[in-house]
């Protein structure tokens, strides 16, 4: 059984209840607004199927639920399926933990990997997560999610090609 080690951690504090943050992480009504139009599909239980889909139905990410403890902890295996260049990447784990912090919530996102993943490949997540989670925070606190344009992560794509996974 490979051991998954945390490689990227992002912490944000959100003025919302744990239940509201949980809802924003697990329902499409919210993910479409802060996660670049992706809908989340979820069987809400340990072992349940998980997917993030583009508006045309294409599965961007697929996996299964490996932690389900509302409203405290939600984790999935994260297998990128699209675009094709990313599909050879081993799946990682994405874990969300929600903890009370005064009248706010501390949300911790951890991306864990089972192999010696190079920095260039981690760079994709390091570009993406701050934008996704900043958007989530703005959505819950102001009702509006920002439109953050992002270029495809060139270094990550190049590194995946060079690794010939």
């Amino acid at each position, binding site marked *: 059984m490979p051991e998954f080690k945390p490689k990227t951690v992002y912490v944000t504090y959100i003025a919302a209840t744990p239940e509201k943050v949980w809802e924003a992480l697990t329902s499409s009504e919210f993910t479409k607004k802060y996660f670049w139009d992706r809908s989340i599909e979820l069987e809400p239980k340990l072992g349940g199927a998980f997917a993030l889909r583009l508006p045309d139905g294409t599965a961007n990410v697929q996996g299964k639920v490996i932690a389900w403890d509302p409203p405290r902890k939600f984790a999935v295996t994260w297998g990128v399926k699209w675009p094709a260049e990313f599909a050879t990447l081993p799946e990682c784990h994405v874990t969300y933990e929600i903890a009370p912090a*005064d009248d706010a919530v501390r949300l911790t996102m951890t991306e864990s990997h089972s192999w010696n993943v190079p920095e260039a490949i981690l760079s994709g997540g390091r570009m993406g997560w701050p934008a996704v989670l900043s*958007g989530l925070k703005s959505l819950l*606190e102001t009702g509006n999610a*920002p439109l953050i344009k992002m270029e495809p992560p060139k270094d990550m794509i190049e590194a995946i090609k060079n690794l010939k996974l």
Partner: protein
Amino acid sequence: MSEAGSSFVYVIYIRTTPERLWRALTAPEFTRQFWCETVQDCEWKVGASWKLMIPDGRVGDAGEVLEIDPPRRLVLSWQNQFTDLRAEGHSRMTYQLEPQGDMVKLTVRHEMPHLGSTFIEKVSNGWPAILSSLKSLLETGEPLEATRRWPKDM
């Protein structure tokens, strides 16, 4: 940029202008609200001394302005003053502000030249709370409760 040493990097997107964000990071009327009642004592030019003042009058951290290019980039040398972490010496702290549509992308990079820095470990826990509170202040008008006041036991 050297890969040796200890570093913490944090990126946050805030719906505001670079000018307003720059002001919030440097002006007392803002920092008092989201940065635990602290103010910065600084003339904001290269070579000027810089101090982060705790509300009871103690100096929290001190250093110097190394680079300043408002509202894009600020680099400070930064040494803790009020705890044992003073012994680690000067860190280097960079704010990079980049407009992105109606948002500003703020990158905070805080570095020590040596490995295993406890100072960097401590600021790694502090920055996400301070910067989240800054974002709430600028987007909603209210900072987060957790960072309104200097902690009583510190």
